[in-house]
């Protein structure tokens, strides 16, 4: 990067909003997936859409790659800078611009966190539905890039179902509005394409989301089972029987032990626990909840606890949402995988994981969104033991192959990023990927917007992906992972 280019960045943004000292750049080397790193040439902190536009235009003119970044909580290396790039950090875009209760929507800047949207509308009895486990810290801009879901996406859908409009800066610096304040913008669904494009098509600078009225009633149940199959059978019975709960989560013995040690949610010491939440009109929740309870008992639940207070329900959810972070209590290191299988193939795939666990000698905890078949195996290892880190990576890759064998997906919510770019050919043919690349080139002919993500490249795929490593701040017990 030339000094003239840096000078131009400073002229656009002011010197304070351009970082280039090695120590300042450290923060931006990785996202939530700490083993994938890259050092940018500079980090910019624009404060307005016009500034983002000016930076992008400058990059486009000079052929400099740029990487949009929210709060860096992603788990696939989607915000890792390529060398020589400019990171466009949107942390100063942190204002709620408009709350429109009568029309049930809110417009926010991309650096606003997921939970801040709900906080802004909660006094009116509304909430923003997608609830990724990291919702306290992740940005809505990142949610748009990744199409984030969360425990409640089973009933309420993903980010793509809740975004009405985005303002975005295209890789040539053009500002576009996709979707719109009114329904049915004519033409192909460009908004639906940009959501889930992992920041490779545009830099989103404003997001309008739909907000929902709080449901009349919420009821949560915690059931314990002797086998993971019994828990899985309950899920199949419910969904096959036409009941779509707001959320259905499962955790196995190792994960239960870990969260009990970490946040004491009061889970029974069982092989499997199932959390089922129903919400909606009181009469409906009451009627369906009886069926859920009966189904749990019919499938041999050893205990069934219905949360009797909001506080108890919050504690149950805290147990579930802290599961990744809690693995540190039972293992020095762990590797989080994110794969999807068709719901009916869950028992079969879980059995294969159990066999793999026995064969590999590494313990595997299982936490998953059972309602939609989204698995999060947590592969435990000790990096001090020679070869274990590599072994964990191999195990993680093998689990992904089980998901694809069953007709599933490489990722349900963490994204492809850099982490899984080299696995894309296992799920998609060359023709599939070529068409997606054509779409990318239609937005970004120079290939400058968040390069090396989503698609396999020879440079990228010569390297072997590494396992998860704890951040020094985490090791010191000062922060935890969501």
């Amino acid at each position, binding site marked *: 990067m030339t000094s003239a280019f840096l000078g131009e960045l400073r002229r656009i943004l002011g010197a304070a909003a351009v970082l280039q000292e090695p120590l300042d750049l450290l923060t931006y080397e990785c996202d939530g997936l700490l083993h994938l790193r890259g050092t940018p040439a500079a980090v910019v902190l624009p404060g307005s859409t016009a500034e983002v536009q000016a930076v992008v235009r400058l990059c486009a003119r000079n052929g400099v790659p740029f990487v949009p970044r929210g709060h860096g909580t992603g788990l696939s290396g989607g915000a890792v800078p390529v060398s020589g790039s400019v990171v466009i950090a949107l942390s100063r875009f942190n204002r709620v611009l408009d709350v429109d209760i009568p029309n049930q929507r809110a417009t926010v800047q991309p650096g606003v966190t997921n939970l801040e949207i709900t906080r802004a509308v909660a006094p009116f009895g509304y909430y923003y539905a997608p609830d990724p486990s990291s919702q306290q810290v992740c940005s809505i801009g990142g949610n748009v890039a990744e199409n984030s879901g969360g425990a409640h996406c089973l009933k309420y859908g993903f980010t793509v179902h809740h975004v009405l409009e985005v303002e975005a800066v295209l890789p040539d610096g053009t500002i576009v509005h996709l979707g719109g304040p*009114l329904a049915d913008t004519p033409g192909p669904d460009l908004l639906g*394409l940009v959501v889930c494009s992992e920041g490779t098509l545009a830099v989103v600078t404003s997001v309008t989301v739909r907000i929902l009225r709080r449901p009349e009633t919420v009821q949560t149940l915690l059931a314990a089972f002797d086998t993971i199959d019994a828990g899985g059978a309950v899920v199949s019975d419910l969904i096959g029987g036409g009941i779509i709960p707001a959320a259905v989560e499962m955790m196995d013995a190792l994960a239960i032990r870990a969260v009990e040690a970490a946040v004491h949610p009061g889970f029974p010491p069982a092989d499997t626990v199932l959390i089922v939440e129903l919400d909606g009109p009181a*009469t409906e929740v009451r009627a369906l909840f009886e069926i859920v309870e009966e189904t749990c008992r019919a499938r041999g639940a050893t205990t069934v606890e219905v949360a009797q207070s909001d506080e108890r329900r919050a504690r149950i959810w805290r147990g579930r949402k802290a599961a990744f972070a809690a693995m540190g209590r039972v293992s020095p290191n762990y590797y989080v995988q994110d794969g999807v299988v*068709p719901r009916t193939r869950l028992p079969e795939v879980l059995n294969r994981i159990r066999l793999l666990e026995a064969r590999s000698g590494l313990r595997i905890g299982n936490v998953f969104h059972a309602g939609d078949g989204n698995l999060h195996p947590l592969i435990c290892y000790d990096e001090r033991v020679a070869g274990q880190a590599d072994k964990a990576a191999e195990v993680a890759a093998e689990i992904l192959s089980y998901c694809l064998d069953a007709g599933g*997906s490489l990722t349900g919510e963490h994204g492809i990023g850099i982490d899984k770019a080299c696995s894309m050919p296992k799920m998609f043919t060359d023709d599939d990927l070529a068409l997606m690349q054509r779409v990318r080139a239609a937005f970004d002919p120079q290939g400058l917007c968040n390069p090396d993500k989503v698609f396999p490249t020879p440079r990228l795929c010569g390297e072997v992906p590494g396992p998860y490593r704890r951040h020094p701040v985490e090791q010191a017990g000062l922060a935890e992972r969501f």
Partner: protein
Amino acid sequence: MLIEPETAEAVAAALKQASDARQSVAIRGASTKRDWGRNTAEADVTLGTRRLHRVLAHPHGDLTTTVEAGAPLGDVNRALAGHGQWLPLDPPFGDRATIGGILATNDSGPLRHRYGTPRDQVIGVRLATTDGTLAKAGGQVVKNVAGYDLSKLVCGSFGALAVIVSATFKLAPVWKASKTIVATPAGAEVLGRLVGAMMGSQLEPVAFEVRADAADYETRTMALLVRFASLPSVVDAQIDHARALLGASDTPVQVHEDDGERALWFQHGERLWTASGAIVRASWLPARIADVLAEIARAHPHGRLEMIGRAAVGTGLIRIDADPSTQAAVIERLRRSTTVGNVVLMRGPAELKSLVDVWGPSGDRQALLESVKRAFDPHGMLNAGRGPL
């Protein structure tokens, strides 16, 4: 020339052949929307999808299905009903309209209130492009963020990007029971207040419709239709709640069930399309419905205008029964209005389509749309000119 391939591979081959010969191609499903879009010259090749009509998979435990594009929605739902499931879409001509046509136009009906449009329900797609390749995007599972979701992109494309050969959808369980409450408020202001009250309530209807026509506007008869579906006891409780809410301020309400309810919704879905006149789609902010009704009434004070819309989504269809120049004037007036937007002429006589821009302006997206079109169809031969790109 009409081609009706029986396989996805044959669709791709036919597209390539036409593209190599620089022949224009029009895609045809069940022809239920033949009179939508811009006037176009007849294409060199018409590619009919009616032989691609199979349900390829219905793993009912997974609540998903994969179907070929030429399958009529009615046939698909009859096949899914065996396991108590369905694809909850109710666009116009919903029995005959094909999956491919419904996706390409992203068309929907009253159930959009609860289930969204086709783009909200599609989870994967297989496309044939003009270079003769078959490419898929999305997947077979309900939760998946691997790669670009081109299944969303083709929604609303009007067949101008690629031929959809098959698609995978998430499904819903068939309702155990349903009932509908119809309220006939005295005037637009009362109706507007009731829409606000319904939206602010914790009721969870599957459909929430507003209906009015210009003549009725004067005589102050317009209607809200609210449909509830769930277990029988739940439906009754919701109806009771809705009756109290809508019946406030002396608004007459009536509850429809069983055959009467089914007939009500059938007629509601058909009434615009079986009558004469141009049909325009327009959108608005839901809280402005009273202003919207007033605007529509003013747009053509002496003629017949009829409107049916999704009250909480803020979108609807307006039928304009008049001569083409009057229809054109109404459309231009609606386009100048600040209360409605995205005004698109859906169905209309060729003369009207020569008088007004069918799709309206595409704002700051125009260059991007053209670029995306070129990426898929560099020679501009696929459904050219008819749709919004």
